């Protein structure tokens, strides 16, 4: 057996936009063990729920993560509404669906771009982010915020989208879809990308489930599990199939994200067609009492919010289980046996969002 050495990776590292620390145990160039350590972004905002009124905490929930902020707000609002048995107006549910799919589009373009950057394909990175700006423009036009929207509230949404704007958004997406096709073709067909990704960081189907992988990481290993199929918001009224790839390697996870973007565009189109007229919010009175679990599909996988109230204006407990947190054990499994030079690619293939994972 050759000599073992430990190489620290992070918390500040050229390929990491966020701080996570991995101790890589190497034998020659091969990673034999990985010891992750986290806590660099831990803020402790679950405890803040005791100090904020339940209607105010939406803003904090949205700031769990700046990339999937709308989905966090949505999950929290759903939890409180479930606890208080509030009937949210149909139109608000559709608007929430549209915005959460927009979040998915922007998040997937972001992560594919960063993935290209890690691969050393700078042009592709810039192109992905160029397309992402179109999504953010629509987000800003409809909610007022680029990355943190603040448009979801307990009892509905804060603002409506006019039908002209909805049509405009769909025609914008139709245009964007063509450019996104070109972009994803490169990810899916380019031979040098394939040679970097195929067979790298393989997570077999059985292990993916046992380690508790979530989202594209799980679907890239052959599991057709998607929390949107639970039918929250307006997803029960829309037709879609989760994107599944079976190889379980970095290429599969990249392909799941690339193909999911088109599913999202299709979902937005369907939602715009079916959206009913009516109010977008109901008046909320009283205070939440009881407990509630809510599950939604974030761009990175299944997100669980647990809320507990005691009949006062402040909740007593909020617990968030984020997909990146559950994707860390699968990541450790993927890294074992890989080459040192492949570590950044594999780390990015789970689309790590440390802000979510540590809260």
């Amino acid at each position: 057996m050759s000599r073992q050495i430990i190489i620290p990776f992070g918390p500040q590292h050229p390929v990491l936009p966020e701080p996570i620390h991995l101790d890589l145990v190497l034998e020659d160039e091969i990673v034999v063990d990985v010891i992750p350590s986290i806590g660099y972004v831990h803020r402790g905002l679950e405890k803040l729920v005791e100090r904020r009124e339940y209607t105010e905490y939406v803003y904090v929930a949205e700031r769990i993560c700046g990339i999937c902020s709308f989905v966090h707000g949505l999950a929290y609002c759903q939890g409180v509404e479930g606890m208080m048995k509030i009937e949210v107006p149909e139109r608000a549910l559709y608007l929430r669906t549209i915005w959460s799919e927009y979040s998915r589009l922007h998040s997937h373009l972001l992560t594919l771009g960063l993935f290209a950057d890690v691969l050393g394909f700078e042009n592709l990175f810039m192109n992905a982010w160029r397309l992402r700006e179109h999504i953010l423009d629509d987000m800003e036009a409809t909610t007022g915020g680029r990355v943190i929207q603040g448009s979801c509230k307990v009892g509905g949404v804060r603002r409506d989208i006019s039908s002209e704007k909805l049509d405009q958004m769909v025609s914008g997406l139709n245009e964007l879809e063509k450019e996104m096709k070109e972009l994803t073709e490169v990810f899916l067909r380019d031979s040098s990308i394939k040679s970097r990704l195929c067979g790298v960081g393989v997570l077999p189907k059985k292990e993916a489930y046992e380690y508790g992988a979530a989202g594209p990481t799980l679907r890239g290993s052959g599991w057709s599990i998607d929390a949107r199929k639970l039918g929250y918001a307006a997803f029960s009224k829309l037709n879609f199939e989760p994107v599944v790839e079976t190889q379980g390697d970095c290429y599969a996870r990249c392909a799941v994200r690339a193909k999911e973007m088109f599913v999202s565009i299709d979902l937005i189109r369907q939602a715009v067609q079916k959206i009913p007229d009516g109010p977008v919010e109901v008046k909320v009175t009283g205070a939440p009492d009881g407990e509630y679990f809510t599950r939604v599909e974030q761009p990175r996988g299944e997100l669980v919010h647990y809320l507990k109230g005691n009949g006062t204006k402040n909740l007593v407990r909020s617990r968030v289980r984020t997909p990146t947190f559950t994707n860390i054990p699968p990541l450790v499994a993927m890294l074992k046996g890989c080459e040192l030079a492949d570590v950044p690619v594999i780390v990015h293939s789970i689309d790590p969002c440390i802000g979510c994972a540590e809260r």
Partner: protein
Amino acid sequence: MTYLSKSPWLLHYNASSCNGCDIEILACLTPMYDVERFGIINTGNPKHADIFVVTGSINEENKDVLVNLYEQIPDPKVVVAIGICAASGGVFRECYNVMGGIDKLIPVDVYVPGCAARPESIIDGIVKSLGILEEKRTAMVKGIPVKPEMNTAVREAGTE
């Protein structure tokens, strides 16, 4: 901009930020805003950097990392605090693991407010910092020391 005589490189560190400001910094470097046309490059190596861009507030785990990075950047250097969290802790101010703005640990030259800070204001802040960087460089050439005091008390005291 006559004072842009050099290509300033920046080092970005996420100190317990929610990613909102971080992705906006990255957005500044990509085609829509494209600060790379001014020669501003996001480097991963503190020894290559002139501008230290920090998002988020300090906590127990990252305070040493932040000081370590700051000390590794060669003089003259400027620190830009992006977002309200880096200025004061922002919405997370009352959280148990948030010690407040980064100016408790390292000297900050420019504050860019916002939650999340918009790319336009980030660029504005960086441009302001370039002027300060140039002043520091001139002072250094003249032999005037430009080493501001670091607040080591917070580093040792820990969270209250």
